[in-house]
């Protein structure tokens, strides 16, 4: 397979031709923030946190879905990108009711980690304070829409890894919600296998195991990537 060479933040890198910018950066130990990206599932380019600047390209491109090209010169951490990323995180915090101190995912939350890494110490926007539902009709799990960032990782994990497609998205714009089956209580879903992959996929405390309290939720993202690697490559690497 042909190999491409490119530079990321001025440093030369090599890449396989089918790799994305994000994959190459991760291999090289270069951090690009992501939220909707989840190893083992298809990328959708929705959160826009991984946007990078590429010399000679007029617009910003998402690293997760942009394939490498020979001679690409990529910048992943410019002041402009940092400001945009910060604003994206602020938009998320303002959009729903993210209160870390009472959240099951406190200290184990990707949104919280992103906010800290990107220097979001206050929100310059109006909080929208929407009224959101909490569905605890499922015997083992619950979903708190107050904490959902609509990354659709649960939707993709459920569809692509579990094959159940219990989760999907309904509504549009700010009213969009992840739903189970045809927007019915999770506990009444006929397709849910109660496998818990959505729980592992969730970046925040939106999907949680019942009975867990503040800061108790521990997501194991690795288990999803492990499953996919095992299935596709027959490699059982823990």
């Amino acid at each position: 397979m042909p190999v491409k060479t490119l530079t990321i933040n001025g440093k030369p890198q090599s890449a396989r031709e089918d790799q994305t910018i994000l994959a190459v950066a991760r291999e090289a130990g270069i951090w690009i923030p992501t939220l909707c990206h989840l190893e083992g599932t298809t990328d959708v380019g929705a959160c826009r946190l991984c946007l990078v600047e590429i010399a000679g390209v007029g617009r910003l491109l998402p690293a997760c879905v942009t394939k490498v090209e020979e001679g690409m010169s990529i910048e992943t951490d410019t002041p402009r990108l940092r400001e945009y990323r910060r604003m994206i995180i602020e938009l998320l915090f303002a959009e729903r009711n993210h209160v870390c101190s009472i959240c099951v995912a406190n200290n184990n939350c990707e949104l919280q980690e992103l906010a800290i890494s990107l220097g979001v110490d206050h929100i310059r926007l109006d909080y929208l304070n929407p009224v959101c539902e909490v569905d605890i009709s499922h015997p083992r799990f619950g979903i708190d829409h107050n904490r959902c960032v609509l990354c659709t990782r649960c939707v993709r994990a459920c569809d692509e890894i579990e094959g159940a497609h219990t989760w999907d998205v309904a509504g549009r714009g700010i009213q969009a919600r992840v739903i189970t089956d045809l927007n019915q209580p999770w506990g009444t879903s006929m397709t849910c296998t109660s496998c818990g992959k959505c729980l592992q996929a969730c970046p925040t405390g939106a999907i949680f195991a019942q009975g867990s309290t503040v800061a108790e939720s521990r997501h194991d993202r690795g288990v999803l990537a492990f499953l996919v690697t095992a299935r596709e490559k027959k490699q059982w690497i823990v």
Partner: protein
Amino acid sequence: MDLAELQAIAVKERSARRQVRIRCCAAAGCLPLGSMKIKEGLDAVVMQAGLRERVNVSAVGCLRLCSAGPLIQIDPDGPLYERVRPEEAASIVRALDGGPPATPQRGDPRQPFFARQRSIVLENCGLVDPDRIESYIEAGGYHALYHVLREMSPGAVVAELSKSGLRGRGGAGYPTGLKWATVAKQPAARKFVVCNADEGDPGAFMDRTVLESDPHRVLEGMAIAAYAVGANEGYIYIRGEYPLAIHRLDTAINEAKRTGLLGSQIFESRFDFKVDIRIGAGAYVCGEETALLHSIQGQRGVPRPRPPYPAAAGLWDLPTLINNVETFANVPPIIRKGGEWFASIGTETSKGTKVFALAGKIRHTGLVEVPMGTTLREIVEEIGGGAPAGTIKAVQTGGPSGGCIPAEHLDTPVDYESLIRVGSIMGSGGMIVMDQETNMVDVAKFFMEFCMDESCGKCIPCRAGTVQMHRLLERISQGLGTRSDLEQLEALCDMVKHTSLCGLGQSAPNPVLSTLRYFRHEYEDLIRDGAARRGSPVKKGTGPIISGPAPARASPAQLGHSPGLERGE
């Protein structure tokens, strides 16, 4: 079907013509005003008067001057009647038979509104009966398809399109020939042609009118495109809000199938082509090509990142050509008269004509088609007749993705590049005229609300950013905004424009940016006046002290406000 049969249909149709033909507009503008009743009335009167051998009455497409509807035009010599009422049918027929002049208001078909237009896309609009394929064939229809299938190679068709310089009429202006060539070069055995008829911009009704007035033209354009790129299946994605256009398209497809102009081995060539209609469920974002493709596939209508472009991986990951209604409607005349002829019309970079839907504060509302390079002033002042009261303040083009062009730039020629230079875009052809009464902050807020409602919710900048921008605009328009709100609004505009996933989000800030560019003082006045109003009562200690955001605009009297301080800061 062969050429002789096609010509026979045209001859038969021509011989059925009567000496006098009364054309009644049966498009969506005049129908709700009772144009079908008028047609029925005319039919009945003609019958009673025993004039059937001399006069026929036909329902045709749009007669363009929508503001004066219902419209009726009479051939030959084309007297035009405006605002016709059903009970006036008898007087019109009597006038034809040598009676006293008809009672409805006489319109002048030579007035600038008609005389300054140049019709290519709309050449049959208001002339042919959209429900009868014979009427289209008589006007020269499907001859271009015959020529293409029997006398041209697919490569030659693409070359002709490239030579014409036609650019996508959906708004972005991508060269059509290049798009066709890209799809034609894809090695896949199965390809698709898709017609984007999900016209959703507020104030735009060009595509609807073309489909209601001359649906076969679009089918012929699609068939030619399919032959050129090597596709055998086509879809027309049309919004559910256009029931009449859907009905006429459906009739047109069935008629074309029945006549052998769609289906297998068209004109006894080896080319097969079938077309299906897909009806949108009301999402504006489905006009974005990748969302449109998802919707056709039965999935949720959300965009996906490009590349891959639909030309490489479209419907079911197969190469797909997507063009707008007006783009396809330009194809038959280009084939008929040649790419060079088309390229001789318009400007250096924008060829041919463009159809605009004139609406807003303007005397003549309706449909106009003008050569590219015509100035905005000619369109709104000469053709449109200017604002009925007062003077024009700005012209909005390009819908929610476009911008407001102020009166001082009315001499800008209408072409893709010039409109971008003045901060707007060509867009699909909606043109909304605003007079001095219009508050530009409200205009920006209206379009932002539209984008907020129509955001699909997939990417964060568009989903949450439009909501925040709308809140800031709301606050500023109510006089509750501050300078930092304005700064934040500008920062959000920049961020949403550069980080959103699809065209909807990327262009959502445009109405704000263009009004800020030309009418910044209106934003600043609202902020300054609002601050003065809120500041004065507190200082004087006479009015109620408002804490937090005030519920709505409070009147000066409520705030114990002294009028003398109104303008001061």
